[in-house]
Protein backbone atom coordinates (compact mmCIF):
# COMPACT_ATOMS: atom_id res chain seq x y z
CA UNK A 1 0.00 0.00 0.00
CA UNK A 2 1.35 3.41 -1.00
CA UNK A 3 1.97 5.69 1.98
CA UNK A 4 3.81 8.59 0.34
CA UNK A 5 3.37 9.83 -3.20
CA UNK A 6 5.32 12.82 -4.53
CA UNK A 7 4.52 14.25 -7.94
CA UNK A 8 6.89 16.49 -9.84
CA UNK A 9 8.32 18.14 -6.71
CA UNK A 10 10.36 21.28 -7.23
CA UNK A 11 11.97 23.38 -4.54
CA UNK A 12 13.84 26.49 -5.48
CA UNK A 13 15.49 28.85 -3.01
CA UNK A 14 16.41 32.39 -3.76
CA UNK A 15 19.63 33.09 -1.98
CA UNK A 16 21.03 36.57 -2.61
CA UNK A 17 18.97 36.68 -5.78
CA UNK A 18 20.62 33.50 -6.99
CA UNK A 19 18.26 30.62 -7.63
CA UNK A 20 19.22 27.36 -5.96
CA UNK A 21 17.35 24.29 -7.19
CA UNK A 22 17.28 22.08 -4.12
CA UNK A 23 14.75 19.61 -5.50
CA UNK A 24 14.12 19.21 -9.21
CA UNK A 25 11.11 17.41 -10.63
CA UNK A 26 11.07 14.49 -8.26
CA UNK A 27 8.44 11.76 -8.56
CA UNK A 28 8.45 9.28 -5.77
CA UNK A 29 6.31 6.61 -4.20
CA UNK A 30 6.95 4.91 -0.87
CA UNK A 31 5.04 1.82 0.20
CA UNK A 32 4.01 0.81 3.67
CA UNK A 33 6.72 -1.12 5.52
CA UNK A 34 9.63 0.25 3.52
CA UNK A 35 13.02 0.89 5.13
CA UNK A 36 14.25 3.47 2.66
CA UNK A 37 17.36 5.60 2.63
CA UNK A 38 17.58 8.79 0.60
CA UNK A 39 21.28 9.22 0.06
CA UNK A 40 23.66 11.52 -1.65
CA UNK A 41 26.41 14.07 -1.02
CA UNK A 42 25.92 17.11 1.20
CA UNK A 43 23.71 19.72 -0.44
CA UNK A 44 22.11 17.27 -2.85
CA UNK A 45 18.62 18.01 -1.44
CA UNK A 46 18.07 15.00 0.88
CA UNK A 47 16.89 17.02 3.88
CA UNK A 48 14.82 19.36 1.72
CA UNK A 49 13.06 16.41 0.13
CA UNK A 50 12.48 14.81 3.53
CA UNK A 51 11.09 18.07 4.93
CA UNK A 52 8.72 18.41 1.99
CA UNK A 53 7.56 14.79 2.30
CA UNK A 54 6.97 15.42 6.01
CA UNK A 55 5.03 18.64 5.49
CA UNK A 56 7.58 20.74 7.37
CA UNK A 57 8.58 22.58 4.21
CA UNK A 58 6.49 23.43 1.20
CA UNK A 59 7.53 22.78 -2.37
CA UNK A 60 7.79 25.54 -4.95
CA UNK A 61 5.63 23.32 -7.14
CA UNK A 62 4.43 19.75 -7.18
CA UNK A 63 2.21 17.68 -4.92
CA UNK A 64 2.67 15.37 -1.96
CA UNK A 65 0.05 12.82 -1.02
CA UNK A 66 0.14 10.98 2.28
CA UNK A 67 -2.19 8.01 2.37
CA UNK A 68 -4.01 9.59 -0.57
CA UNK A 69 -4.44 13.01 1.06
CA UNK A 70 -2.75 15.96 -0.62
CA UNK A 71 -0.82 17.73 2.13
CA UNK A 72 0.57 20.48 -0.11
CA UNK A 73 -2.87 22.11 -0.04
CA UNK A 74 -3.11 22.27 3.76
CA UNK A 75 -2.61 25.52 5.68
CA UNK A 76 -0.10 25.85 8.56
CA UNK A 77 -2.43 24.71 11.34
CA UNK A 78 -3.90 21.86 9.29
CA UNK A 79 -0.38 20.74 8.50
CA UNK A 80 0.61 20.76 12.17
CA UNK A 81 -2.40 18.57 12.99
CA UNK A 82 -1.64 16.32 10.05
CA UNK A 83 1.96 15.89 11.13
CA UNK A 84 0.86 15.17 14.69
CA UNK A 85 -1.42 12.34 13.64
CA UNK A 86 0.44 10.86 10.69
CA UNK A 87 4.18 11.44 10.76
CA UNK A 88 6.94 10.62 13.19
CA UNK A 89 10.21 12.58 13.12
CA UNK A 90 13.71 11.75 14.21
CA UNK A 91 16.14 14.64 13.87
CA UNK A 92 19.90 14.66 13.57
CA UNK A 93 20.30 16.64 16.80
CA UNK A 94 17.70 14.54 18.70
CA UNK A 95 15.75 17.70 19.55
CA UNK A 96 14.07 16.40 22.66
CA UNK A 97 12.36 18.87 24.98
CA UNK A 98 15.14 19.49 27.49
CA UNK A 99 12.86 20.18 30.45
CA UNK A 100 10.99 16.88 30.09
CA UNK A 101 12.14 13.42 31.11
CA UNK A 102 12.49 10.55 28.64
CA UNK A 103 9.05 9.34 29.69
CA UNK A 104 7.49 12.79 29.38
CA UNK A 105 9.09 13.39 25.98
CA UNK A 106 7.59 10.16 24.72
CA UNK A 107 4.23 10.86 26.33
CA UNK A 108 4.15 14.42 24.95
CA UNK A 109 2.87 13.54 21.47
CA UNK A 110 0.09 11.42 22.93
CA UNK A 111 -0.85 14.28 25.22
CA UNK A 112 -1.15 16.53 22.18
CA UNK A 113 -3.46 13.89 20.73
CA UNK A 114 -5.53 13.82 23.92
CA UNK A 115 -4.94 10.18 24.70
CA UNK A 116 -6.25 9.04 28.11
CA UNK A 117 -3.65 8.85 30.86
CA UNK A 118 -3.56 5.06 31.25
CA UNK A 119 -3.10 4.53 27.50
CA UNK A 120 -0.34 7.15 27.38
CA UNK A 121 1.45 5.65 30.31
CA UNK A 122 1.24 2.13 28.94
CA UNK A 123 2.44 3.08 25.45
CA UNK A 124 5.25 5.40 26.62
CA UNK A 125 6.67 2.71 28.90
CA UNK A 126 6.22 0.06 26.23
CA UNK A 127 8.06 2.16 23.63
CA UNK A 128 10.89 3.11 25.94
CA UNK A 129 11.23 -0.57 26.80
CA UNK A 130 11.44 -1.38 23.08
CA UNK A 131 14.27 1.11 22.62
CA UNK A 132 16.01 -0.26 25.70
CA UNK A 133 15.50 2.72 28.00
CA UNK A 134 13.06 1.43 30.57
CA UNK A 135 15.55 2.28 33.30
CA UNK A 136 15.87 5.89 32.09
CA UNK A 137 12.22 6.91 32.27
CA UNK A 138 12.88 9.78 34.66
CA UNK A 139 16.08 11.04 33.09
CA UNK A 140 16.08 14.36 31.33
CA UNK A 141 17.89 14.62 27.96
CA UNK A 142 20.86 16.31 29.59
CA UNK A 143 21.50 13.17 31.62
CA UNK A 144 21.35 10.85 28.60
CA UNK A 145 24.05 10.01 26.06
CA UNK A 146 23.57 10.98 22.40
CA UNK A 147 22.56 7.43 21.50
CA UNK A 148 20.08 7.24 24.35
CA UNK A 149 18.58 10.60 23.40
CA UNK A 150 18.17 9.44 19.81
CA UNK A 151 16.43 6.30 21.05
CA UNK A 152 14.03 8.45 23.08
CA UNK A 153 13.47 10.44 19.88
CA UNK A 154 12.55 7.21 18.11
CA UNK A 155 10.15 6.30 20.90
CA UNK A 156 8.64 9.78 20.64
CA UNK A 157 8.34 9.48 16.87
CA UNK A 158 6.48 6.19 17.22
CA UNK A 159 4.28 7.25 20.12
CA UNK A 160 1.41 8.56 18.03
CA UNK A 161 1.35 5.45 15.82
CA UNK A 162 2.34 7.42 12.71
CA UNK A 163 1.93 6.18 9.14
CA UNK A 164 5.69 6.51 8.69
CA UNK A 165 8.81 7.86 10.39
CA UNK A 166 11.11 10.37 8.72
CA UNK A 167 14.64 10.36 10.08
CA UNK A 168 17.03 13.10 9.02
CA UNK A 169 20.64 11.97 9.49
CA UNK A 170 19.69 10.16 12.71
CA UNK A 171 23.14 8.64 13.17
CA UNK A 172 25.24 11.67 12.25
CA UNK A 173 26.01 12.56 15.85
CA UNK A 174 26.39 9.01 17.15
CA UNK A 175 29.38 6.76 17.66
CA UNK A 176 29.39 3.35 16.00
CA UNK A 177 28.05 1.43 18.99
CA UNK A 178 25.15 3.85 19.44
CA UNK A 179 24.54 3.81 15.69
CA UNK A 180 24.38 0.01 15.62
CA UNK A 181 22.03 -0.07 18.61
CA UNK A 182 19.76 2.57 17.06
CA UNK A 183 19.67 0.89 13.67
CA UNK A 184 18.99 -2.49 15.28
CA UNK A 185 16.00 -1.00 17.05
CA UNK A 186 14.64 0.72 13.96
CA UNK A 187 15.20 -2.31 11.80
CA UNK A 188 13.49 -4.57 14.34
CA UNK A 189 10.50 -2.21 14.54
CA UNK A 190 10.34 -2.23 10.76
CA UNK A 191 10.58 -6.00 10.55
CA UNK A 192 8.32 -6.89 13.45
CA UNK A 193 5.74 -4.09 13.36
CA UNK A 194 5.92 -3.13 9.69
CA UNK A 195 6.71 0.50 10.54
CA UNK A 196 7.77 2.53 7.49
CA UNK A 197 11.07 4.37 7.89
CA UNK A 198 12.48 6.93 5.45
CA UNK A 199 16.00 8.15 6.17
CA UNK A 200 18.00 11.02 4.76
CA UNK A 201 21.57 9.94 5.32
CA UNK A 202 25.05 9.58 3.98
CA UNK A 203 25.98 7.06 6.63
CA UNK A 204 27.06 3.79 5.01
CA UNK A 205 25.83 1.82 8.05
CA UNK A 206 22.31 3.04 7.41
CA UNK A 207 22.59 2.29 3.73
CA UNK A 208 23.76 -1.24 4.56
CA UNK A 209 20.48 -1.86 6.40
CA UNK A 210 18.20 -0.10 3.91
CA UNK A 211 15.83 -2.16 1.76
CA UNK A 212 15.67 0.61 -0.80
CA UNK A 213 18.17 3.33 -1.61
CA UNK A 214 17.16 6.48 -3.46
CA UNK A 215 20.22 8.34 -4.60
CA UNK A 216 20.02 12.10 -5.17
CA UNK A 217 22.36 14.49 -6.85
CA UNK A 218 21.73 18.15 -7.54
CA UNK A 219 18.15 17.74 -6.37
CA UNK A 220 17.37 14.94 -8.82
CA UNK A 221 16.91 11.23 -8.30
CA UNK A 222 19.78 9.60 -10.10
CA UNK A 223 19.20 6.10 -8.83
CA UNK A 224 16.37 4.24 -7.06
CA UNK A 225 17.24 0.72 -6.12
CA UNK A 226 15.53 -1.96 -4.03
CA UNK A 227 18.03 -4.09 -2.09
CA UNK A 228 17.80 -7.80 -1.65
Amino acid at each position, binding site marked *: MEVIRAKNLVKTYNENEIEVHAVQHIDLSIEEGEFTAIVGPSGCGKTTLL*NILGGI*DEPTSGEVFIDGKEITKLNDNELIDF*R*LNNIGYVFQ*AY*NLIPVLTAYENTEFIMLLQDWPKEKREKRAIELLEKVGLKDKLDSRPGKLSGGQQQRVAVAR*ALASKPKFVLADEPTANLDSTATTQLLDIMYRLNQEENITFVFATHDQRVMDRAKRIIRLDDGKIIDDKKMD
Partner: protein
Amino acid sequence: MLVKIAWRNIWRSRARSLVVIGSIIVGVWALLFGNGFMNGFMVGYSADIIQHDISNIQVHNPEFKKDYDIVFTIPNGDEKANEIRQWEGVKGVSTRSITQGMISSPQKAAGVQIRGIDLENEAIVTQLDSMINEGTYFEGIKRNPIVIGSKLARNLKVKIRSKVVLTFNDANGDIIAGAFRVVGIVKSSSISINEMYAFVRQEDLNKLLAIGSEIHEIAIVTEEQIDEALIVNKYSEIYPDDKAESWKELAPELLFMQEMYGSMLYVLMAIILTALVFGIVNTMLMAVLERKKELGVLMAIGMNQKKVYLMILIETLFLAFVASPIGLLVGYLTILYYRYVGVDLSNYSEGLEAFGYSSILYPYVDGSVYIIVTIGVIITAFIAALYPAWKAVKLKPVDAIHSI
Protein backbone atom coordinates in the same frame (compact mmCIF):
# COMPACT_ATOMS: atom_id res chain seq x y z
CA MET B 1 1.74 19.29 30.36
CA LEU B 2 1.88 22.84 28.97
CA VAL B 3 1.87 24.17 32.48
CA LYS B 4 4.62 21.73 33.47
CA ILE B 5 6.78 22.68 30.47
CA ALA B 6 6.16 26.40 31.04
CA TRP B 7 7.06 26.13 34.72
CA ARG B 8 10.26 24.21 34.00
CA ASN B 9 11.15 26.54 31.15
CA ILE B 10 11.21 29.61 33.36
CA TRP B 11 13.86 27.97 35.52
CA ARG B 12 16.08 27.03 32.57
CA SER B 13 17.67 30.42 32.60
CA ARG B 14 17.48 30.92 36.33
CA ALA B 15 19.46 34.16 36.46
CA ARG B 16 17.39 35.79 33.72
CA SER B 17 14.09 34.74 35.27
CA LEU B 18 15.25 35.92 38.67
CA VAL B 19 16.11 39.33 37.23
CA VAL B 20 12.57 39.67 35.85
CA ILE B 21 11.05 38.32 39.04
CA GLY B 22 13.21 40.74 41.00
CA SER B 23 12.12 43.67 38.89
CA ILE B 24 8.46 42.73 39.32
CA ILE B 25 9.00 42.45 43.09
CA VAL B 26 10.63 45.88 43.18
CA GLY B 27 7.87 47.29 40.95
CA VAL B 28 5.11 45.91 43.16
CA TRP B 29 6.90 47.07 46.28
CA ALA B 30 7.43 50.56 44.82
CA LEU B 31 3.77 50.73 43.85
CA LEU B 32 2.60 49.79 47.32
CA PHE B 33 5.07 51.97 49.14
CA GLY B 34 4.47 54.89 46.77
CA ASN B 35 0.75 54.57 47.30
CA GLY B 36 1.22 54.15 51.06
CA PHE B 37 3.44 57.21 51.15
CA MET B 38 0.91 59.32 49.25
CA ASN B 39 -1.88 58.03 51.45
CA GLY B 40 0.25 58.86 54.47
CA PHE B 41 0.44 62.42 53.23
CA MET B 42 -3.23 62.58 52.40
CA VAL B 43 -4.68 60.60 55.29
CA GLY B 44 -2.46 62.45 57.74
CA TYR B 45 -3.39 65.78 56.22
CA SER B 46 -7.13 65.04 56.11
CA ALA B 47 -7.15 63.43 59.53
CA ASP B 48 -5.37 66.43 61.02
CA ILE B 49 -7.85 68.83 59.51
CA ILE B 50 -10.91 66.75 60.35
CA GLN B 51 -9.80 65.73 63.83
CA HIS B 52 -8.24 68.97 64.97
CA ASP B 53 -10.06 71.62 63.02
CA ILE B 54 -13.31 71.17 61.17
CA SER B 55 -14.55 67.92 62.79
CA ASN B 56 -16.74 65.42 60.97
CA ILE B 57 -19.85 67.57 61.04
CA GLN B 58 -20.63 71.19 61.75
CA VAL B 59 -23.99 72.84 62.38
CA HIS B 60 -24.64 76.53 61.78
CA ASN B 61 -27.41 78.96 61.34
CA PRO B 62 -27.79 78.90 57.52
CA GLU B 63 -27.08 82.66 57.38
CA PHE B 64 -24.01 82.63 59.60
CA LYS B 65 -21.35 81.48 57.16
CA LYS B 66 -22.26 84.01 54.52
CA ASP B 67 -20.67 86.92 56.42
CA TYR B 68 -19.89 85.43 59.82
CA ASP B 69 -22.44 87.87 61.23
CA ILE B 70 -22.63 87.08 64.92
CA VAL B 71 -26.34 87.72 65.15
CA PHE B 72 -27.01 84.47 63.30
CA THR B 73 -26.74 82.04 66.17
CA ILE B 74 -28.13 78.53 66.44
CA PRO B 75 -31.36 78.74 68.41
CA ASN B 76 -31.12 76.64 71.58
CA GLY B 77 -27.68 75.52 70.48
CA ASP B 78 -26.62 74.14 73.86
CA GLU B 79 -29.75 72.01 74.18
CA LYS B 80 -29.29 70.67 70.69
CA ALA B 81 -25.65 69.87 71.45
CA ASN B 82 -26.68 67.98 74.59
CA GLU B 83 -29.22 66.00 72.58
CA ILE B 84 -26.73 65.08 69.84
CA ARG B 85 -24.26 63.84 72.45
CA GLN B 86 -26.71 61.03 73.21
CA TRP B 87 -26.94 59.86 69.60
CA GLU B 88 -25.43 56.58 68.57
CA GLY B 89 -22.24 56.98 66.57
CA VAL B 90 -21.44 60.39 68.04
CA LYS B 91 -18.16 60.52 69.91
CA GLY B 92 -18.16 64.16 70.98
CA VAL B 93 -19.96 67.46 70.50
CA SER B 94 -18.64 70.92 71.18
CA THR B 95 -20.23 74.33 70.84
CA ARG B 96 -18.49 77.48 69.71
CA SER B 97 -19.21 81.14 69.45
CA ILE B 98 -17.25 82.62 66.62
CA THR B 99 -16.35 86.04 65.36
CA GLN B 100 -13.81 87.56 63.04
CA GLY B 101 -11.53 90.19 64.51
CA MET B 102 -8.06 91.54 65.02
CA ILE B 103 -5.48 90.40 67.48
CA SER B 104 -2.83 92.92 68.46
CA SER B 105 0.33 92.70 70.43
CA PRO B 106 2.49 95.72 71.28
CA GLN B 107 4.49 94.91 68.14
CA LYS B 108 2.05 93.65 65.57
CA ALA B 109 -1.55 92.96 64.65
CA ALA B 110 -3.21 90.24 62.60
CA GLY B 111 -6.66 89.20 61.47
CA VAL B 112 -7.97 86.10 63.27
CA GLN B 113 -11.03 84.02 63.80
CA ILE B 114 -11.84 84.21 67.46
CA ARG B 115 -13.36 81.00 68.76
CA GLY B 116 -15.19 80.94 72.05
CA ILE B 117 -14.92 77.32 73.08
CA ASP B 118 -16.39 74.94 75.61
CA LEU B 119 -13.07 73.84 77.13
CA GLU B 120 -14.03 70.35 78.20
CA ASN B 121 -15.88 69.36 75.04
CA GLU B 122 -13.40 71.08 72.70
CA ALA B 123 -10.72 68.83 74.18
CA ILE B 124 -12.85 65.81 73.25
CA VAL B 125 -13.77 67.05 69.78
CA THR B 126 -10.54 68.63 68.50
CA GLN B 127 -8.05 67.50 71.17
CA LEU B 128 -6.95 71.11 71.36
CA ASP B 129 -5.43 70.41 74.77
CA SER B 130 -3.11 67.81 73.27
CA MET B 131 -1.72 70.35 70.82
CA ILE B 132 -0.46 72.70 73.53
CA ASN B 133 3.21 73.19 72.83
CA GLU B 134 3.92 75.87 75.41
CA GLY B 135 1.96 76.95 78.46
CA THR B 136 -1.25 75.25 79.52
CA TYR B 137 -4.74 74.58 78.33
CA PHE B 138 -6.51 77.52 79.97
CA GLU B 139 -4.95 76.91 83.39
CA GLY B 140 -3.04 79.37 85.49
CA ILE B 141 -4.61 82.56 84.21
CA LYS B 142 -8.00 83.37 85.60
CA ARG B 143 -9.00 86.44 83.65
CA ASN B 144 -9.42 86.28 79.86
CA PRO B 145 -6.94 83.55 78.99
CA ILE B 146 -6.26 82.97 75.31
CA VAL B 147 -4.64 80.15 73.36
CA ILE B 148 -3.08 80.94 70.00
CA GLY B 149 -1.12 79.06 67.37
CA SER B 150 2.65 78.95 67.29
CA LYS B 151 3.01 80.82 64.03
CA LEU B 152 0.61 83.53 65.14
CA ALA B 153 2.57 83.87 68.38
CA ARG B 154 5.75 84.19 66.38
CA ASN B 155 4.19 86.79 64.10
CA LEU B 156 2.87 88.82 67.02
CA LYS B 157 6.13 88.28 68.89
CA VAL B 158 4.30 87.15 72.01
CA LYS B 159 5.08 84.52 74.61
CA ILE B 160 3.22 82.85 77.44
CA ARG B 161 1.61 85.45 79.69
CA SER B 162 2.02 88.17 77.06
CA LYS B 163 -0.94 90.46 76.72
CA VAL B 164 -2.86 90.71 73.48
CA VAL B 165 -5.92 92.72 72.56
CA LEU B 166 -8.82 91.32 70.56
CA THR B 167 -10.91 93.79 68.62
CA PHE B 168 -14.21 92.91 66.99
CA ASN B 169 -17.83 93.96 66.60
CA ASP B 170 -20.41 93.04 69.21
CA ALA B 171 -24.03 92.11 68.56
CA ASN B 172 -24.99 95.77 68.49
CA GLY B 173 -22.42 96.57 65.84
CA ASP B 174 -20.16 98.42 68.25
CA ILE B 175 -16.44 97.87 68.14
CA ILE B 176 -15.30 96.10 71.23
CA ALA B 177 -11.79 95.47 72.46
CA GLY B 178 -10.82 92.96 75.10
CA ALA B 179 -7.48 92.36 76.70
CA PHE B 180 -6.41 88.71 76.93
CA ARG B 181 -3.33 87.03 78.25
CA VAL B 182 -1.65 84.18 76.39
CA VAL B 183 -2.02 81.02 78.46
CA GLY B 184 -1.03 78.47 75.86
CA ILE B 185 0.52 78.17 72.45
CA VAL B 186 -0.59 75.30 70.23
CA LYS B 187 1.38 73.70 67.47
CA SER B 188 -0.27 71.74 64.74
CA SER B 189 0.27 70.81 61.12
CA SER B 190 -2.98 72.71 60.42
CA ILE B 191 -2.28 76.15 59.01
CA SER B 192 -5.58 77.44 60.46
CA ILE B 193 -4.76 76.39 64.00
CA ASN B 194 -1.19 77.63 63.80
CA GLU B 195 -1.92 80.96 62.28
CA MET B 196 -5.54 81.93 62.00
CA TYR B 197 -7.43 80.98 65.16
CA ALA B 198 -7.50 82.48 68.61
CA PHE B 199 -9.20 80.31 71.26
CA VAL B 200 -10.88 81.88 74.22
CA ARG B 201 -13.41 80.68 76.77
CA GLN B 202 -16.94 80.81 75.42
CA GLU B 203 -18.27 82.76 78.37
CA ASP B 204 -15.53 85.41 77.99
CA LEU B 205 -16.26 85.91 74.32
CA ASN B 206 -20.03 85.78 74.65
CA LYS B 207 -19.87 88.47 77.30
CA LEU B 208 -17.96 90.75 74.98
CA LEU B 209 -20.17 89.89 72.03
CA ALA B 210 -23.27 90.49 74.15
CA ILE B 211 -24.98 87.34 72.89
CA GLY B 212 -25.72 85.70 76.23
CA SER B 213 -25.25 81.96 75.97
CA GLU B 214 -25.91 81.77 72.24
CA ILE B 215 -23.55 79.85 70.00
CA HIS B 216 -22.66 79.90 66.29
CA GLU B 217 -21.32 76.45 65.69
CA ILE B 218 -21.84 72.91 66.86
CA ALA B 219 -18.91 70.67 65.99
CA ILE B 220 -19.56 66.94 66.00
CA VAL B 221 -17.00 64.18 65.90
CA THR B 222 -18.32 60.75 64.98
CA GLU B 223 -17.18 57.21 65.68
CA GLU B 224 -14.71 55.98 63.05
CA GLN B 225 -16.98 53.58 61.18
CA ILE B 226 -19.98 55.92 61.11
CA ASP B 227 -21.03 57.52 57.85
CA GLU B 228 -21.35 61.22 58.60
CA ALA B 229 -24.23 61.50 56.16
CA LEU B 230 -26.44 59.47 58.54
CA ILE B 231 -25.94 61.97 61.36
CA VAL B 232 -26.26 64.94 59.00
CA ASN B 233 -29.56 63.59 57.64
CA LYS B 234 -30.88 62.82 61.08
CA TYR B 235 -30.06 66.30 62.32
CA SER B 236 -31.53 67.95 59.22
CA GLU B 237 -34.75 66.01 59.64
CA ILE B 238 -35.15 67.06 63.26
CA TYR B 239 -33.90 70.64 62.83
CA PRO B 240 -34.57 71.60 59.22
CA ASP B 241 -33.94 75.31 59.96
CA ASP B 242 -30.28 74.71 60.82
CA LYS B 243 -27.58 73.82 58.35
CA ALA B 244 -25.69 70.60 59.10
CA GLU B 245 -22.76 69.75 56.84
CA SER B 246 -20.23 66.96 56.80
CA TRP B 247 -16.53 67.64 56.28
CA LYS B 248 -17.00 66.78 52.61
CA GLU B 249 -19.16 69.86 52.17
CA LEU B 250 -17.20 71.97 54.60
CA ALA B 251 -13.87 71.25 52.93
CA PRO B 252 -14.56 69.98 49.40
CA GLU B 253 -10.90 70.55 48.59
CA LEU B 254 -10.08 67.66 50.96
CA LEU B 255 -12.37 65.35 49.05
CA PHE B 256 -10.89 66.55 45.79
CA MET B 257 -7.38 65.97 47.11
CA GLN B 258 -8.31 62.49 48.30
CA GLU B 259 -9.70 61.67 44.87
CA MET B 260 -6.65 63.16 43.20
CA TYR B 261 -4.30 61.15 45.41
CA GLY B 262 -6.44 58.09 44.67
CA SER B 263 -5.93 58.59 40.95
CA MET B 264 -2.19 59.03 41.55
CA LEU B 265 -2.12 55.30 42.27
CA TYR B 266 -3.13 54.67 38.69
CA VAL B 267 -0.57 57.15 37.35
CA LEU B 268 2.14 55.48 39.42
CA MET B 269 0.90 52.08 38.30
CA ALA B 270 0.94 53.12 34.66
CA ILE B 271 4.55 54.35 34.94
CA ILE B 272 5.90 51.34 36.82
CA LEU B 273 3.96 48.73 34.88
CA THR B 274 4.92 50.26 31.55
CA ALA B 275 8.56 49.93 32.56
CA LEU B 276 7.87 46.34 33.60
CA VAL B 277 6.24 45.55 30.26
CA PHE B 278 9.45 46.41 28.45
CA GLY B 279 11.52 44.33 30.88
CA ILE B 280 9.28 41.31 30.53
CA VAL B 281 8.99 41.63 26.74
CA ASN B 282 12.76 41.78 26.50
CA THR B 283 13.25 38.69 28.64
CA MET B 284 10.54 36.64 26.98
CA LEU B 285 11.70 37.64 23.54
CA MET B 286 15.19 36.46 24.43
CA ALA B 287 13.70 33.23 25.75
CA VAL B 288 11.78 32.70 22.51
CA LEU B 289 14.69 33.51 20.23
CA GLU B 290 17.04 31.32 22.25
CA ARG B 291 14.59 28.43 21.95
CA LYS B 292 13.81 29.02 18.30
CA LYS B 293 14.98 25.55 17.32
CA GLU B 294 13.09 23.88 20.12
CA LEU B 295 9.89 25.75 19.26
CA GLY B 296 10.36 24.74 15.63
CA VAL B 297 10.66 21.11 16.67
CA LEU B 298 7.54 21.37 18.83
CA MET B 299 5.59 22.68 15.86
CA ALA B 300 7.14 20.12 13.55
CA ILE B 301 6.08 17.21 15.73
CA GLY B 302 2.55 18.51 16.04
CA MET B 303 2.20 21.20 18.71
CA ASN B 304 -0.21 23.66 17.17
CA GLN B 305 0.20 27.43 17.19
CA LYS B 306 -2.47 27.90 19.85
CA LYS B 307 -0.59 25.68 22.26
CA VAL B 308 2.76 27.31 21.52
CA TYR B 309 1.16 30.71 22.11
CA LEU B 310 -0.40 29.49 25.32
CA MET B 311 2.88 28.04 26.54
CA ILE B 312 4.71 31.38 26.17
CA LEU B 313 1.78 33.14 27.80
CA ILE B 314 1.81 30.74 30.75
CA GLU B 315 5.57 31.12 31.14
CA THR B 316 5.20 34.89 31.37
CA LEU B 317 2.28 34.67 33.75
CA PHE B 318 4.29 32.30 35.94
CA LEU B 319 6.94 35.00 36.32
CA ALA B 320 4.22 37.36 37.53
CA PHE B 321 2.63 34.72 39.77
CA VAL B 322 5.96 33.99 41.44
CA ALA B 323 6.96 37.64 41.82
CA SER B 324 3.65 39.28 42.75
CA PRO B 325 3.07 37.55 46.11
CA ILE B 326 6.66 38.23 47.14
CA GLY B 327 6.35 41.89 46.08
CA LEU B 328 3.03 42.18 47.88
CA LEU B 329 4.47 40.61 51.02
CA VAL B 330 7.56 42.80 51.01
CA GLY B 331 5.39 45.86 50.35
CA TYR B 332 2.95 44.88 53.08
CA LEU B 333 5.72 44.34 55.62
CA THR B 334 7.34 47.67 54.72
CA ILE B 335 4.03 49.49 55.09
CA LEU B 336 3.32 47.65 58.34
CA TYR B 337 6.71 48.63 59.75
CA TYR B 338 6.45 52.30 58.81
CA ARG B 339 2.83 52.43 59.90
CA TYR B 340 4.11 51.96 63.42
CA VAL B 341 7.38 53.85 63.37
CA GLY B 342 6.41 56.46 60.76
CA VAL B 343 8.54 57.95 58.03
CA ASP B 344 10.46 60.80 59.58
CA LEU B 345 10.57 63.74 57.21
CA SER B 346 11.67 66.24 59.84
CA ASN B 347 14.53 67.34 57.59
CA TYR B 348 11.88 68.79 55.33
CA SER B 349 9.44 69.68 58.11
CA GLU B 350 9.50 73.43 57.56
CA GLY B 351 8.48 73.08 53.95
CA LEU B 352 5.90 70.41 54.72
CA GLU B 353 4.33 72.29 57.59
CA ALA B 354 4.03 75.38 55.44
CA PHE B 355 1.61 73.33 53.39
CA GLY B 356 -0.14 71.89 56.42
CA TYR B 357 1.50 68.46 56.27
CA SER B 358 2.84 66.59 59.24
CA SER B 359 6.59 65.94 59.34
CA ILE B 360 6.07 62.29 60.30
CA LEU B 361 4.17 60.23 57.79
CA TYR B 362 2.36 57.03 58.54
CA PRO B 363 2.01 55.16 55.24
CA TYR B 364 -1.26 53.44 54.72
CA VAL B 365 -2.44 51.16 51.92
CA ASP B 366 -6.06 50.23 51.47
CA GLY B 367 -6.73 46.48 51.13
CA SER B 368 -8.22 46.97 47.69
CA VAL B 369 -4.89 48.38 46.42
CA TYR B 370 -3.24 44.97 46.92
CA ILE B 371 -5.89 43.45 44.65
CA ILE B 372 -5.61 46.28 42.09
CA VAL B 373 -1.81 45.94 42.00
CA THR B 374 -2.02 42.15 41.63
CA ILE B 375 -4.49 42.47 38.76
CA GLY B 376 -2.32 45.21 37.24
CA VAL B 377 0.78 43.01 37.30
CA ILE B 378 -1.08 40.04 35.81
CA ILE B 379 -2.49 42.21 33.03
CA THR B 380 1.01 43.63 32.48
CA ALA B 381 2.49 40.14 32.18
CA PHE B 382 -0.30 39.17 29.83
CA ILE B 383 0.31 42.20 27.60
CA ALA B 384 4.06 41.66 27.75
CA ALA B 385 3.63 38.05 26.64
CA LEU B 386 1.66 38.88 23.51
CA TYR B 387 4.54 39.97 21.29
CA PRO B 388 7.01 37.19 22.21
CA ALA B 389 4.21 34.61 21.90
CA TRP B 390 3.28 36.01 18.51
CA LYS B 391 6.94 35.84 17.47
CA ALA B 392 7.02 32.20 18.57
CA VAL B 393 4.01 31.12 16.54
CA LYS B 394 5.25 32.97 13.49
CA LEU B 395 8.34 30.78 13.37
CA LYS B 396 8.51 28.47 10.37
CA PRO B 397 9.39 25.00 11.66
CA VAL B 398 11.73 24.34 8.76
CA ASP B 399 13.73 27.52 9.40
CA ALA B 400 13.57 27.23 13.18
CA ILE B 401 14.80 23.62 13.23
CA HIS B 402 17.81 24.50 11.15
CA SER B 403 18.62 27.64 13.11
CA ILE B 404 21.64 27.50 15.39
